């Protein structure tokens, strides 16, 4: 690149870069300091990682997020490829419908889950009529799981569809001409072709699930996912050092997940973020 067209940009951008850096680093530095200043100092990290309540919540959140990611990827992979490959009546409607949850915040999704699977919910009515037992799962991890899958699907499916559209059909034809069955083509060509999109949208899905708060808060205060614990420690218990160290642990886990995805999938994670 020639140097001649950049002075203008440098002038414009340099102050912004400096302000940005401060703006981005300060809160983080403060977060780290708070932990150090707390009652246990840096040992707070050890407390957080050994105390059963915190550790359980950490593990539960990670398991939930991983489960949501796995289920969402599996569903969206199949449905996304199907929707890209087939033209049928009402197809646009199906796609529009699948992306509806994008328009609703977590609070509203939680609210929907309560109306669906809560004490007065539709599923409860249905199961009572059919089996005599009321199935109520809105206020538990199961409710949260359904809610997270519900709002993860749009992001993932749109990414998968964009990737599926870009797959080169000729590569599949080449594999078939070499004798590969449909199953082998799926395994050797389609899945590897979708992998970057799946990895990157999976990482975003995982990160979002790790940090989601509104839904959990709406469903119940009894669900001990990490953001809920952080909120409780900070606001109700005023245990700021613990809240800060939990935040940092959560931040590191998410950051690692995103970093792994980025190194696996190249820059697409960024674009899909």
């Amino acid at each position, binding site marked *: 690149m020639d140097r001649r067209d950049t002075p203008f940009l440098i002038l414009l951008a340099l102050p912004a870069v400096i302000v940005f850096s401060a703006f981005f680093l300060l809160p983080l530095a403060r977060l780290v300091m708070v932990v150090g200043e707390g009652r246990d100092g840096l040992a707070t990290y050890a407390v957080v990682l050994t105390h059963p309540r915190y550790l359980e919540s950490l593990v539960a959140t990670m398991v939930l997020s991983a489960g949501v990611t796995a289920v969402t990827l599996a569903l969206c992979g199949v449905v996304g490829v199907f929707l890209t490959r087939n033209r049928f009546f009402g197809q646009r409607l199906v796609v529009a419908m699948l992306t509806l949850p994008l328009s609703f915040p977590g609070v509203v999704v939680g609210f929907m889950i309560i109306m669906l699977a809560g004490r007065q919910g539709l599923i409860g009515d249905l199961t009572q009529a059919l089996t005599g037992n009321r199935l109520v799962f809105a206020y538990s991890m199961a409710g949260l799981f359904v809610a997270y899958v519900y709002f993860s699907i749009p992001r993932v499916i749109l990414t998968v569809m964009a990737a599926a559209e870009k797959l*080169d059909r*000729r*590569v599949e*034809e*080449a*594999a*078939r*001409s*070499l*004798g*590969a*069955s449909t199953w*082998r083509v799926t395994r*050797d*060509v389609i899945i*590897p*072709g979708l*992998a970057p999109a799946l990895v990157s949208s999976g990482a975003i899905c995982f990160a979002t699930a790790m940090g989601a708060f509104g839904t959990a808060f709406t469903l119940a205060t009894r669900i001990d996912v990490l953001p809920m614990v952080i909120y409780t420690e900070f606001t109700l218990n005023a245990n700021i050092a613990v809240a800060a160290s939990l935040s940092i642990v959560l931040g590191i886990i998410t950051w690692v997940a995103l970093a792994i995805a980025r190194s696996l999938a190249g820059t697409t994670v960024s674009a899909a973020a």
Partner: protein
Amino acid sequence: MTGPGLDIRLVACAKTFTDGTRALEPLDLDIAAGETVVFLGPSGCGKTTTLRIIAGLERPDPGGRVVFAGRDVTPLPVEKRDIGMVFQSYALFPNMDVAGNVGYGLKVRRIPAVDRRRRVAEMLEMMHITELAARSVDQLSGGQKQRVALARALAVRPRVLLLDEPLTALDAKLREELRIEIDRLLRNLGITAVYVTHDQAEAMALGDRIVVMERGRVAQVGTPREVYLSPANPFVARFIGTLNVVSGEAADGHLHLPGGRLALNGAGSIPASGRLSVAFRPEAVAVIPLINPGDQPHPDGGLIGTVTAAFFLGDHIRLVIDGAGESAIVALAPNHHRFTPGDRVHLAVDGGAMPFAEG
């Protein structure tokens, strides 16, 4: 498994797409074992559709049949037809290295790893890309990619090789190089090959026979020589090579033109008189510089015109000559001659001028 290729017979193969477009009118064609047939035509002429029907990637309309060595393979999908395919876009597997790509077909056929490795090494050597074995496919140039694609297609010893514009994405120098390579391969392997292209030079260099197609129909089937020297219709004549077409009044066995008269000693179907068009190739014109301003055309027939442009093209000179016919005439001259715009020249057209029905 290998050995001479098999013969292919297409019977009434037509293709209508679901939206009602007729991509291919019913086509009958016999391809001999070991022959290289090139389908040539502009885009949308049905040449790729024909290739895909032979491959089993498209099914012909009901009634059409594809027969390999006497066996009707119409209902068989592509993976059961024992063919090799090469695509314009290379279509390599991006998640495998070069050796992985070349060995894929063998892996699918459950060939033991030892034999597979040997065969892959053989194929890489044949395509002169042994040193690329461990490379990722996106580190390759276009020419290298297409070599890998050829090695991959040939590794499974297919009895038919189908090539869909394999050189179109390459630049001139590489295209020439790989064309020679492909020709050598097809001759040496004795494989039956079907080659699709829109480039007439490629078609002439590679094809035992050329099938010229136009709007879903076969315009002509013949050897390169037949297609070039005796085109079946104006479309073929214009599509293959450059063609001069001149129109004038025919009388006394000559065509009278602004720059003189042209002897009509060709076919017997020429009317004695009336308006007529004839066509001839640039290389059929002998160009002689005129020295004196008063020079007249040769009494046996010949035209006088003025050079308006002379392109030195290395092995020959391409001349554009005005004033001889109603429109400009293109002629070739040997590269040791010198012409400059404004030169007056005498043109003699070799006996091969063809009467020409405007399409």
